[in-house]
């Protein structure tokens, strides 16, 4: 009797094992031994579905959460880090059980390759133009926005780059403009229509006195705005890219340099080497408030064609074994308090808008960057920098301009 029972039990057991092995061979989930890459790959197959997700932080393993972010956004004490970004999570129920650990991105393309190669981050911090690449590579999964109490405070226009196949993949965190900072005492727009315009870069009265960011896609975007007016500069035809390249080459005749550090162009500006430069909000703020600029009329251009807007934020790795807790960490970064701190500390805007202005300590920043005016952040006043299309043609054209 015992022997018979044992055999039946054995057969039942082996039968179950066979079924499990079959499911595994067919690509079923359930693997405690899968590494990040294979998990990511499996997740990638699933992420095209926009089905609602429902993570349960309470049932997830107690283990550190790895955050793959940019320098300045870790938990190190200020000024090196941004503990205010994660404080609500750290003080919450999982802060000790799943403490945050940080690794820094070198750049967006490096980060993609690193995670694709199996680097097992839970939260990653890409920017607008790259979200689609993360999704297409199967490296990220939809957010469980039900675990983001302040999700509704993020405008749809900022959520848009992360809305793919009906699901949200990106929580906008740090956002800002790209525009021209100029000395209005020395620069006038009379030769380019009388209004603030990207065409000022073509005015040879300022030859050798402008500077632009060394980004091939951005160089084409500036020129496209000058050529086409207030139209989305991230989507062009091949012919329009060719035309933008020609315009960018003309702009280059007036360009002193393509900067690779905003600090460098700020220094160039305040030392009188240039009158016009492309900056992010903090660059403008530093120039405007620099002691050497006292008494000068420093402006941040609101061109008739529109500014550019960059949108960076947090995504959830497809390989994460603690997606619910990762969402709670993201929720901390999405609070009004964290949003206000982004502005006070870095002069950027935040993805979060609700209740933020009240918490910003330096109220001058609200006025300077229109943080209380949603229209300034949407087309046609500002164009979100999403993935350019056609991508390779943009990059090649911009690089040709830089190399010319």
């Amino acid at each position, binding site marked *: 009797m015992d022997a018979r029972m044992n*055999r039946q039990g054995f057969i039942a057991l*082996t039968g179950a*094992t*066979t079924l499990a*092995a*079959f499911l*595994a*061979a067919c*690509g079923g989930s359930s693997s405690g031994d899968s590494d990040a890459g*294979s998990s*990511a*790959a499996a997740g*990638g197959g699933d992420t095209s579905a926009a089905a609602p997700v429902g993570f349960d932080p309470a049932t997830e393993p107690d283990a550190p959460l790895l955050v793959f972010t*940019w*320098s*300045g*956004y870790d938990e190190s*004490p*200020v*000024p*090196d880090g941004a*503990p*205010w970004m994660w404080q609500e999570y750290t003080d919450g129920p999982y802060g000790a059980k799943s403490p945050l650990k940080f690794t*820094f*991105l*070198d*750049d*967006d*393309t490096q980060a993609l*390759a690193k995670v*694709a*190669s*199996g680097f097992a981050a839970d939260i990653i911090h890409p*920017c607008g133009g790259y979200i689609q*690449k993360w999704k*297409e*590579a199967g*490296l990220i999964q939809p957010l469980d926005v039900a675990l983001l109490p302040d999700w509704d405070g993020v405008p749809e226009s900022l959520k848009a780059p992360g809305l793919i196949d009906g699901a949200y993949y990106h929580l906008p965190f740090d956002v800002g403009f790209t525009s021209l900072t100029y000395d209005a005492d020395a620069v006038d727009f009379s030769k380019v229509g009388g209004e603030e315009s990207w065409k000022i870069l073509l005015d040879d009265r300022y030859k050798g006195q402008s500077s632009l*960011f060394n*980004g*091939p*896609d*951005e160089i084409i975007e500036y020129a496209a705005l000058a050529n086409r007016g207030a139209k989305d500069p991230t989507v062009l035809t091949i012919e329009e890219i060719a035309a933008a390249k020609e315009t960018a080459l003309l702009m280059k005749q007036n360009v002193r340099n393509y900067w*690779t*550090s*905003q*600090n460098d162009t700020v220094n160039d500006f305040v030392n009188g080497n240039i009158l016009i430069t492309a900056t*992010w909000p*903090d660059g403008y703020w*530093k120039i405007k408030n620099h002691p050497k600029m006292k008494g000068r009329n420093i402006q941040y251009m609101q061109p008739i064609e529109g500014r550019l807007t960059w949108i960076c934020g947090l995504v959830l790795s497809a390989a994460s074994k603690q997606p619910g807790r990762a969402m709670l960490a993201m929720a901390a970064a999405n609070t009004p308090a964290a949003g206000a*701190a982004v502005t*006070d*500390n*870095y002069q950027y805007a935040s993805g979060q808008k609700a209740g933020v202005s009240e918490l910003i300590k330096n109220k001058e920043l609200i006025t300077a960057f229109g943080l209380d005016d949603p229209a300034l952040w949407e087309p046609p006043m500002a164009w979100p920098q999403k993935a350019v299309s056609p*991508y*390779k043609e943009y*990059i*090649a054209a*911009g*690089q040709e301009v830089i190399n010319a």
Partner: protein
Amino acid sequence: MRALVVTLVAVVVMAGSAVAVAQRADTSASTRARMITALTTATSPDDCGCTAATRAKDRVANRATAEASTNTKIVP
């Protein structure tokens, strides 16, 4: 006879499991390889991907400079 059947079943199951694990490993490796190939072809070598990276470097440099110049901690 029964013992033989049980042994055969065990052998078949173990072999099946080994094949399944090997297939899964192969699937993972090939999927990852395809993913990396897709990324490589989708990303231009001239795309520096450096916009946010540049901000990050400047951000840290500026905060450190500000602290050094005022000799005070900047509180959030």
